């Protein structure tokens, strides 16, 4: 007899994959198959105009759209809210699918389920399924850290669009993927075709493995990367920096006595990671005080921004009374060769305790989206000409484009998707007689010129 207690929590599949890898195709396949599940779909879009929901086929499933930003960043709050509502309507759904943006780091998305008690009690992560575009994967993995994260975190990997590469290219790609993630199940697919038992309810996600990939997986993110505690006597000290990768570094220094704890309650390291980090997080929320080379840092509850554009700069610290002092820095001290010593000379001081904190993660800022939403009808000849030129000239920088268009003379929407220089489109739902015919399209890529894209598009209108 199987005595295991059945986990009655609603399973959640996190669907990731770089831009254009076929996530929406897979989603449509899942929704159109007779699986008997009541699936709630959460769509997250990177683009500033939501069009993904138009690409998802009409189905009984409810599609929850999130396009206020990337799901792995500030929109995690949205995810918590939407899931929070879903679990209160649990009679309606027995499976949840989250389609992330192609730019999403899946780690923080999955982490959400372990950071919120309400969600943890009601939901379980079944698997992180990652689609890989066999044609463009090498370039994406070379250039975008998010693509590597998606592969690393995957429990199931679909090497999709296998028809666009040769068998030897596919083998080479699989070796590369396998070297990044040896435990995931890898499937070769065309049009994301794969029996659903390989994707849904596979119970493949394992928290311990996630912690192996990222030992700080469950730690909260902080606006600083490092904290240390120094035992200092009364007197003057210097804090030296060499120029680093950024023109400035934010820092705060405050005495132990500012914390609501006493030394006998916990070790210095514990205090550094708990009360010290909490106070520092508050200080990093405050406006900063700018300081330049030679200025004095007063150890108090304040965030300083130290200019580090010179080759070598020194800041003074006046310590009014002996004791332990907490120092938190925006970046790792070694990036700026930070050192502290007494003004009277002597060796560099070492912290008595230190800790590396999980910093806020950042996206490649050069990757942006341009959304165009305008009513009207398009001349198909002009549109083809414009898109053809655009993809020839800027195809490498356009990671993804997708949209729903109103073509003159056509009764149905034209739904299209493109990845780099590849383009695919098909007729969609018919326009209703009194419906406003609106064109919505989004470009996602690097170095996009909004004005030029808007101008080019408008010139295609009848």
């Amino acid at each position: 007899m199987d005595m295991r207690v059945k986990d009655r929590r609603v399973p959640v599949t996190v669907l990731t994959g770089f831009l254009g890898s076929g996530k929406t195709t897979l989603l449509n396949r899942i929704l159109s198959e007779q699986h008997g599940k009541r699936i709630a779909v959460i769509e997250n879009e990177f683009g500033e105009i939501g069009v993904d929901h138009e690409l998802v086929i009409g189905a009984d499933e409810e599609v929850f759209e999130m396009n206020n930003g990337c799901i792995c960043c500030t929109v995690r709050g949205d995810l918590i809210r939407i899931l929070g509502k879903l679990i209160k309507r649990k009679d309606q759904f027995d499976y949840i699918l989250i389609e992330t943006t192609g730019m999403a780091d899946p780690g923080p998305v999955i982490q959400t389920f372990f950071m919120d008690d309400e969600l943890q009690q009601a939901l379980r992560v079944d698997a992180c399924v990652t689609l890989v575009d066999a044609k463009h994967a090498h370039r994406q993995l070379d250039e975008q850290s998010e693509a590597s994260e998606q592969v690393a975190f995957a429990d199931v990997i679909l090497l999709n669009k296998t028809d666009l590469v040769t068998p030897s290219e596919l083998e080479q790609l699989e070796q590369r993927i396998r070297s990044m993630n040896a435990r995931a199940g890898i499937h070769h697919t065309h049009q994301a075709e794969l029996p659903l038992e390989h994707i849904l309810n596979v119970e493949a996600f394992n928290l311990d493995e996630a912690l192996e990939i990222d030992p700080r997986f469950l730690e909260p993110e902080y606006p600083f990367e490092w904290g240390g505690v120094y035992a200092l006597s009364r007197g003057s000290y210097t804090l030296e920096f060499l120029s680093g990768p950024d023109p400035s570094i934010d820092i705060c220094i405050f005495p132990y006595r500012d914390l609501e704890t006493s030394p006998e309650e916990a070790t210095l390291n514990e205090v550094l990671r708990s009360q010290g980090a909490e106070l520092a997080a508050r200080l990093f929320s405050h406006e900063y005080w700018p300081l330049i080379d030679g200025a004095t840092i007063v150890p108090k509850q304040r965030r300083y921004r130290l200019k580090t554009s010179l080759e070598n700069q020194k800041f003074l610290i006046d310590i009014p009374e002996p004791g332990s002092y907490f120092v938190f820095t925006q970046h790792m001290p070694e990036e700026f060769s930070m050192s502290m010593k007494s003004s009277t000379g002597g060796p560099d001081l070492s912290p008595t305790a230190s800790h590396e904190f999980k910093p806020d993660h950042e996206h490649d800022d050069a990757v942006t989206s341009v959304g165009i939403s305008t009513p009207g009808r398009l001349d198909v000849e002009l549109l083809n000409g414009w898109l053809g030129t655009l993809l020839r000239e800027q195809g490498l920088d356009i990671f993804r484009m997708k949209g729903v268009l109103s073509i003159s003379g056509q009764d149905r929407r034209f739904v299209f998707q493109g990845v780099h220089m590849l383009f695919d489109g098909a007729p969609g739902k018919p326009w209703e007689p009194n419906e406003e015919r609106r064109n919505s399209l989004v470009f996602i890529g690097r170095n996009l010129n909004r004005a030029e894209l808007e101008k080019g598009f408008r010139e295609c209108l009848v």
Partner: protein
Amino acid sequence: MSGIATSSRILEQEPCAEFQLNGYVSEICWTPDGSRVAVASLEGEAAVFDVAAGRRAWSRPELLFGISSAAICTEAGLLGCCGDEKKLSLLSLESGETLQELALPAWAERLRFSDDGALMAVAAGREVLVYQREGSVFNPYLTYTEHDSTVSDIAWQPGGDILAACAYGALSLWTGNDAKDHRRFRWKGSSLRVAWSPDSRYLATGDQDATVHIWFVDSGKDLQMRGFETKVLELSWDHSGRYLATGGGVVPTVWDCSGKTGPENRPPVELFGHKAQVKTLSFARQHSLLVAGDEIGDLCAWNPTADEAPGEPLERRTLSSALVYSAFSPDDSHLAIGGADGVVSIFRTRWHERA
């Protein structure tokens, strides 16, 4: 949803009215005269109940895909509802008929009318849209933008036209006559709920990281209260503005905010009686009475502002479902309790009779 009361000093033994709604109760609001109560559910039903007659005045079972928030504007005689659709509906309070529908840029989390009924604010995505009333019609007026993420809650200043909006990264204060932000209290965290103290001295936020912030509105100084078990979604000020009740776990806490430094270095009063996570708590509107409901259906009431430490709850009873919303009528003569099963129970208060 009537159940067993182990003590009954605050509420009548049986509810005077009970109504079934389709789905988890997301909001309960009373008309100012206390004669009717409007309710909404996450399944998208909106309804108004005549409390004295004990009957349903009207119901709109599938008004929206889901209703996150509802509010009454008596000046215009309407009930506003918004939620998981890109529109808000303004319904006749009398008949339930749709009077006006307004398109929104995103799904909406919260809808609130200013105390004088002149302005309506809706938090939709990263924006807060403000509408101005002309007769019974609301027209677009201002849009507050530049929030770092989705606005999770909004609250009008009591009797005023300053709107507080909380989102990840900051608590923003906007004025009702200008689209520029009035003030911004920055905080690198996610605030989920915001509540003004009745005297406008404080703004309290309940946060995702299991903390509560209390902002001194004049100075912008903030205090961060820690020690909660979970994220804090339950906040309620007493009528004097001195006490703030907070949830965020099994044991509700009450913070004394009197004096220059407010609750700084002052331990909160802990209220014992629940055995499960508190999901709703409300101070009475005019009396020193706090009720709290939890996820296993227990309802407890205390007077946490009395000089002596509150011991056993003054009232404890078990209802049949998780209790997720509570609201006293304006004169405290009734208490409406909403459940996760959609049942709304209205109890007469005994406390009110004694007072």
